[in-house]
């Protein structure tokens, strides 16, 4: 039977996927960038600074989604003790941190021409900074706690506590008065973003997701090799 949790089987799959993503990535990136920078129209109010949104919004989504994944995997690992899940969370965390930071920095660059300030301690921005801190502590625990089973336990607690922050980020713009505008893309109902701008946004999101998948696979592969290497010594 093909066992999905068997590292040997996963390893082969990872190599196939990495090669596949590598083959299509740059073509897609080029298409997405040309739509984001050239073919999409400027906004009626913001002008060309709206283009910053094409990196800011996907980065923020990825930052949030990664943390949700980490939390869910931590919960499943806690319930069913599946070792691979903790390897996965460890591989996802740096990606989430990088994209959360990108979202914060590009948002700040966008804030200057739009709001008139680089920084505001409003609820959305503060909760994003807290998310970055959760990522940092998750990674720091894995780095500095030398006993692995202990590191997994403590970092799982961080991930589960941090899960509470995710809906706070999502709804911060609705619950409190913030400088940050409410979400333009709604899961239900019509989006308040024109299709000529939605298209490059989704394209860019897709490209960045592919990039994340690539990094994740590489990191996961590194983790598997690390484990195998450890087992080798035991032989």
């Amino acid at each position, binding site marked *: 039977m093909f066992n999905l949790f068997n590292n040997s089987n996963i390893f082969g799959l990872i190599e196939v996927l990495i090669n596949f993503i590598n083959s299509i990535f740059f073509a897609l990136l080029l298409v997405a960038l040309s739509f984001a*920078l050239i073919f999409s129209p400027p906004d009626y109010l913001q002008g060309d600074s709206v283009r910053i949104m094409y990196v800011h919004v996907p980065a923020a989504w990825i930052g949030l989604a990664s943390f949700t994944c980490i939390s869910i995997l931590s919960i499943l690992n806690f319930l069913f003790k599946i070792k691979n899940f903790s390897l996965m969370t460890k591989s996802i965390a740096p990606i989430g941190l*990088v994209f959360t930071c990108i979202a914060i920095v*590009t948002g700040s*660059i966008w804030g200057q021409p739009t709001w008139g300030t680089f920084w505001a301690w409003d609820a959305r921005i503060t909760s994003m900074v807290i998310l970055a801190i959760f990522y940092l502590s998750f990674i720091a625990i894995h780095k500095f706690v030398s006993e692995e089973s202990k590191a997994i336990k403590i970092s799982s607690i961080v991930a589960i506590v941090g899960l509470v922050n995710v809906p706070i980020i999502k709804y911060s713009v609705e619950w409190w008065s913030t400088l940050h505008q409410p979400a333009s893309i709604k899961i239900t109902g019509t989006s308040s973003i024109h299709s000529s701008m939605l298209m490059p946004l989704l394209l860019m999101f897709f490209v960045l997701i592919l990039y994340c998948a690539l990094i994740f696979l590489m990191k996961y592969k*590194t983790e598997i*090799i690390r484990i*195998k290497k450890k087992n*080798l010594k035991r032989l």
Partner: protein
Amino acid sequence: MIYNFIQMNGYGIFVWSSFIITFLVCGIFYYKTRKSLKKYEKEFAKEIEALSIEQKKTVLENSKVASKVLSSFNKSI
């Protein structure tokens, strides 16, 4: 036209700096991930090579991962 494209009606510096920061960070992050992957692959392959012939045989028979890493490492040399 190119001037306009770079200028972006005065927003150029903001737009370009965000895109450059994003893709620069992504590039560096990719490079670092790749580097540590290669490092582990190399160390792992070396450790297998250092084993005695019998041990090596059992490892390669039992672990697909080990044989894959070893063969790709030998190819790259």
